[in-house]
């Protein structure tokens, strides 16, 4: 049975990088894998998603309503935005970080309170983490995407793949140490 994974967040958070690392690792493990990334306008602080499906044979990576086994939200209101893609009994992984969108900054809309509580009340399986804090503990706030990679790998039970080698392949050498620490922080969350 194929597994489907929806990653959602904000342009600039490094979601596409995490998706590349995940897809590459899955391919090397012998899975067929497809990953769809929608970008363009999204690099300007807009909402970004990538969709990954893996299994024996994958035709289309597109995930619609109620189809994702795992939803990884890199920002908590992005969990609200894409929750309808999550399967009933699927797993939500959510970063507690807040990134205010422009309409909120401009005072036209409000950033909601109690998001994590609402998610925990309504969704069956929620893994909530302050990835920014974990990344800071590992030495660099920018590595919060790699913390999320660690949590996702653990939630999917894919720890046997050599992810640290993939991290080294895709990230600049001087950041390896901190990113690998960040990845391990993510693994330890669960």
């Amino acid at each position, binding site marked *: 049975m194929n597994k489907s994974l929806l990653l959602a967040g904000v342009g600039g958070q490094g979601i596409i990088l995490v998706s590349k690392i995940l897809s590459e690792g899955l391919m090397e493990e012998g899975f067929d*894998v497809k990953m769809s990334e*929608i970008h*363009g*306008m999204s690099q*300007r602080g807009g909402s970004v998603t990538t969709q990954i499906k893996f299994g024996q044979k994958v035709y289309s990576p597109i995930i619609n309503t109620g*189809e994702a086994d795992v939803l990884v939200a890199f920002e908590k209101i992005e969990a609200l935005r894409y929750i309808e893609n999550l399967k009933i009994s699927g797993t939500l992984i959510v970063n507690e970080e807040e990134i205010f969108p*422009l309409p909120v900054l401009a005072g036209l809309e*409000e950033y909601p309170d109690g998001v994590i509580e*609402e998610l925990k009340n309504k969704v069956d399986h929620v893994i909530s983490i302050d990835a920014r804090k974990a990344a800071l503990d590992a030495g660099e*706030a920018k590595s919060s995407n790699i913390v999320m990679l660690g949590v996702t790998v653990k939630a999917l039970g894919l720890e046997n793949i050599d992810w640290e080698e993939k991290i080294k392949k895709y990230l600049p050498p001087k950041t390896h140490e901190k990113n690998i620490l960040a990845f391990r922080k993510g693994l330890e969350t669960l």
Partner: protein
Amino acid sequence: MKKLMTGNEAIARGAYEAGVLVASAYPGTPSTEILENVSMYDEIYSEWSTNEKVALEVAFGASVSGARAMASMKHVGLNVAADPFFTIAYEGVNGGLVVITADEPGMHSSQNEQDNRLYAPHAKVALIEPSDSQECKDYLKRAFEISEQFDTAVLFRVTTRVCHTKGIVELGEREEVGIREYIKNPKKYVMVPANAKEKHIEMERDRLPKLHEFSNTTDLNRIELNDSKIGVVTSGACYMNAKEALGDKASYLKIGFSYPLPDEKFKEFAKHVEKIYVIEENEPYMENYIKALGIDCIGKEEFPLCGEITPQIIRRIVLGESTPSTYKLDILPPNRPPALCAGCPHRGIFYEMSKYKNKINVTSDIGCYSLGASAPLYVGDTVICMGAGFSSGIGFDRVNKMAERGKKVFGVLGDSTFFHSGMTGLVDAVYNKSDLVMVILDNRITAMTGHQENPGTGRNIKGEEAPMIDIVSIVKACGVKEENIKVINPYIMSQNKEAIKAALEAEGPFVIITKQPCALIKEVQKKRANLYSEVDDEKCTKCKTCFRIGCPAISMVDNKVIIDKVQCNGCTVCVQTCPYKAIKVHQERGGKNE
């Protein structure tokens, strides 16, 4: 060797393996990464052309001269290149010629979702549609063979989901096909009426019947028989979506070669299945053809014409499955539209323009500046296509005068757009004595599509040094009076203010050129890494004037105005806007504010 590749990467690999020698393009989502990846192969000459028409003509010239050549563009780019496209159809090729069109059903990053398959029957050019990355590579090689075999250009149509989906690709070796001899042949390549009449007849009489026969026999159009109750005719990304949705519950006629369409294969397929669904995004291109053959099928009466056709839509329509249930929440998220980045050099002049809402209209253009039309700046009355920022402004201004509205028109576009098709509007404005104010936002790069070099960058696609075409000299040479040209630094608000004031008072065409590189350029980020602005809480009255510039780095947290140090690059537009001088710029060691 196997590699995970997007469709665009696989097309580039296909070009390499096919022995392509010349590749040209103008950037545009979702096509941009095709040429970016091609440029990594030293065997292929690749260039960012000034626009899609130029790109296609460069590729055409290379083909006539004997090399395998290709031009890639987004769907609307083919409109720009349509002029050569239709006549190249008559002329045919020498070395293989492939035109890649990247369409956008669903408009993730485009202004329309036109279906460029329709260009193929219009121009009578062979059409190929791959469905995934492996096919992108394999079919591109086939496209060059077909181009040379039938002496025709080939239109290679992909869509966002094909371009931007990574899949596993089996790599092959490059085949050096070399350069064919060029023999002067005006009857074939000089399309004056006498020759064109001959070539048109020849195309209809000789080439198209051969392509038609090929369509009925090629394995690019293949029947996959499974259950006979449901038959699916489909192509491109829809094939993958249909397989994902229906698997073995349906039989398929997968169309990879879609102009001319294979009438015999449709008839044969109809004999095998009870009911035919035609699954294609946007226009009922295959559906109309099949219905005209007298074959019953279900198409746009059930499937949407607008947007993408996903596996879920297919399951709902074909299998009658209902949408899976999901979680419903009581909290709704605020919108998150794309915005001008923190430190974007466009912000200052847009903010200044936003103060003249009752005095000016703004005809905007395709690029980051289209973001100026959203909250809280709302600068922009129109956005239509590349170059229209200037030319549509000329017409807008004429009618403003006829209606005595007393409003000036500002046309806005960027450096790459200026070279693409803004220059022609500038010449028109001067020649026809327009009072248009033309604002060229020169950030030294094609920013929106992810930083491609352009004639103003000083570098080519390979990163090598290239002549830097000087926009100011062009403007002068076009005849704009010296006193009607203002070159400013848009980080300095007094310069924005003075330029706009001068433009409002001036007569005749007026040009403002803002010079400041995109804040996301690596060298710029490095240079400004230690610069940031900070709010003095004691002076801040929370008047929120700084919020009006629409900077994503500025927010209100716990009733305090905060500037995010990570995003801020110390552009100081907020510093200069604050009426209480409550914001200060910090310059840590190594930073330099220019």
